[in-house]
Each structure stands twice: as structure tokens, then as C-alpha cells.
């Protein structure tokens, strides 16, 4: 079976007010940008207030994917949704730091559970605003 990778879509699941995106494949640049658009469209379509991007399977995050993830967080914030990146592998964290990509301003959590806690906390706090 010949899969045209340009049409491969990464599944986005909605749970309560949040979107969960689990990146399971080694992405090339086009796919990464496609994912970014996909997520923003879903935020608009569903009115989700938070997005959890699970990268626990990713063994490598290069500068492009790193910038895609940061960009994702900024764009979602403009659409009033918070992004939390969960499950980063230690080797990936070390390499990103060495590359000089420290992604300031991007929320991260050790795992899905903590990521959801973080988003719920944020939602609870924002209700007072």
C-alpha cells in the first residue's frame, strides 16, 4: 500500500474542553505545518480552550519542529486556547537546549495527567478574570 504522506493526518481528539494531539510519526516539515493549521482549525471549530500535544513518542525534535511547537502555542493563545506540550523525552530536551531552542513561554508537563491538571488550573483561574 502506497500512502501519500502529504495526506497523512495526525488524529486530534476532543475530551471535555480540550484537544488532545498525539504525535506518533516522524514528521517532515510539510506535515508539521499541516498539523499546525489542523489544530487551529479544530480550536475554532470546537471552541476548545486547551490543547495537549503529546510528544512522548517523538525521539527527535529538530529546530523546525521546535519552532512549529512554539509557534503553535503563540497562535493558539491568540485564539484564547492554551497549549501544553507533554511527555518530552530527556534526550529531546537536552538536544533542544544544546540547539539553543529553549522555547520560553511554552508550557510543558511531564505527562498527560499533569498537562490536564495544568490546563484545568488555568481555566479555573481565568474564570475569575
Amino acid at each position, binding site marked *: 500500500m502506497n500512502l501519500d504522506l502529504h495526506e497523512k493526518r495526525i488524529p486530534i481528539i476532543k475530551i471535555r474542553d480540550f484537544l488532545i494531539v498525539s504525535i506518533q510519526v516522524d514528521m517532515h516539515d510539510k506535515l508539521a505545518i499541516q498539523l499546525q493549521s489542523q489544530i487551529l482549525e479544530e480550536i475554532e471549530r470546537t471552541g476548545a480552550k486547551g490543547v495537549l500535544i503529546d510528544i512522548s513518542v517523538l525521539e527527535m525534535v529538530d529546530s523546525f519542529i521546535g519552532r512549529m511547537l512554539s509557534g503553535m502555542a503563540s497562535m493558539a493563545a491568540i485564539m484564547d486556547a492554551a497549549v501544553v506540550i507533554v511527555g518530552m523525552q530527556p534526550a529531546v530536551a537536552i538536544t533542544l537546549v544544546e540547539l539553543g531552542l529553549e522555547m520560553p513561554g511554552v508550557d510543558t508537563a511531564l505527562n498527560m*495527567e499533569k498537562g490536564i491538571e495544568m490546563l484545568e488550573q488555568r481555566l479555573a483561574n481565568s474564570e475569575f478574570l
Partner: protein
Amino acid sequence: MAETIVFEKAKERIEHIEDVLSSVAAGDLDVRIEAEIEDDLTGVEEAINILIEDLTYELKQSKKMREELEEKLSKIEEQQKTIMRQQDDLLELSSPVTKVWDNILILPVIGTLDSQRAQIMMENLLQKIVDTGCTMSILDITGVPTVDTQVANHLLKTVTSARLLGADCIISGISPAIAQTIVHLGIDLSVIRTKATLQDAMIYAMRKNKLLVDGKIKSENISETEESE
């Protein structure tokens, strides 16, 4: 009347002496001069034989010494290898990451911190953070007097990497010398949280933890604490 020195078969014998000396020079120490005739030349012939004997003996001694030295050398090399292996083992053992209290990890570092050790420490700590899901960790370097810029960079890398994972890493016990090294590196100090002593770091971590626990909507954490009591 002058004494006449007569050597029988003088020419032959002198040639024979020359041959033997050449052989010795070429490395053959088994040759000897056969002195069959007793006359004035015999003294020289026997002296040369004795010389060759002495030479043979000296060379044997020298060879023996060389062999002993080589044996000692390979023993020392073996010992060095063992020491290096033990150092590696020590590296592993000397920086254990321990979970103390709920959600707090401590990594106490003692002794000289070189680049290699710092690298291993960083990888161990980050992996432990992911494995245990602890969001607070304390890197205590009270036992480390100085670090070079490479190691200081590793420490900062550890803190930044921990943050990227979604956890906090506090450095405690920074000596004045290390404080100077860090500042000279010109790093943005707002990115690292430091505490003077391990005790201060623990109190800070526990306070922060309590906030997290109390502010939590779910009650799983509270029941976990009860279980561990």
C-alpha cells in the same frame, strides 16, 4: 739482545682473532678463540675469550631486567584499567537520585565534578524526573568546591532541560567560587533558581508542593500521601 717474540702460526691466529672479534661485533656471542698453542699471544687470546664471557653475562642480565620491567609495565596497565572501571562504577553510585517526600527528587553531589560526571548526572536526573513524574528536583552541590565553565554549563543545561520537560530544578549549596564562575559565564540568571543550603531548597520545594497539592482539584495526591504514611 732484544727478546724476540715468536708466534707460531702468527698470521693464521691473528686472522682468527679478527674473525672472532667481527663475529662478536655482529652479535654472535657463542664464538671463542681456540687457544691451542701456549705462547705470548695466548694471553691475548684468553683475555678476549674472558671479555666475550663477560659480555654474554652482561647482555643476559640486561635482557632479564628488560623483561622484568615489561612485566611490571603491563601489570601497571592492567591496574590502570581496573581503576578506570572502578571510577566509572563510582560515578554511577556517587550520584544517586533519591525521591524524598511526595514529588521531590534530590541529587546530592559530592567531590570533584568533571564534565563527564556532570553529563551523566544530568541524564540520570532527567530520566528519573520522567520515570517518577516528580516536578520538583534539587541538585545539591554543597560538596563541590569548584567547577570549570564546562561543568557550570552542564548544570545550567540540567536546569533548562528539566524546565523543558515540565519540571523544576533548584540548585542548592553553591560555593562563592562557583557563584563567580556562573556569573562570569554571563548567563541569564533569572532562569535558574538557587538556594544557599539544601535545607532552604527542601523548604522551598515542600512549600511549593503543598501549594500544588492543596490547589489540586482531584484528591489522588492526598490519598497517595496517606498511603505512604
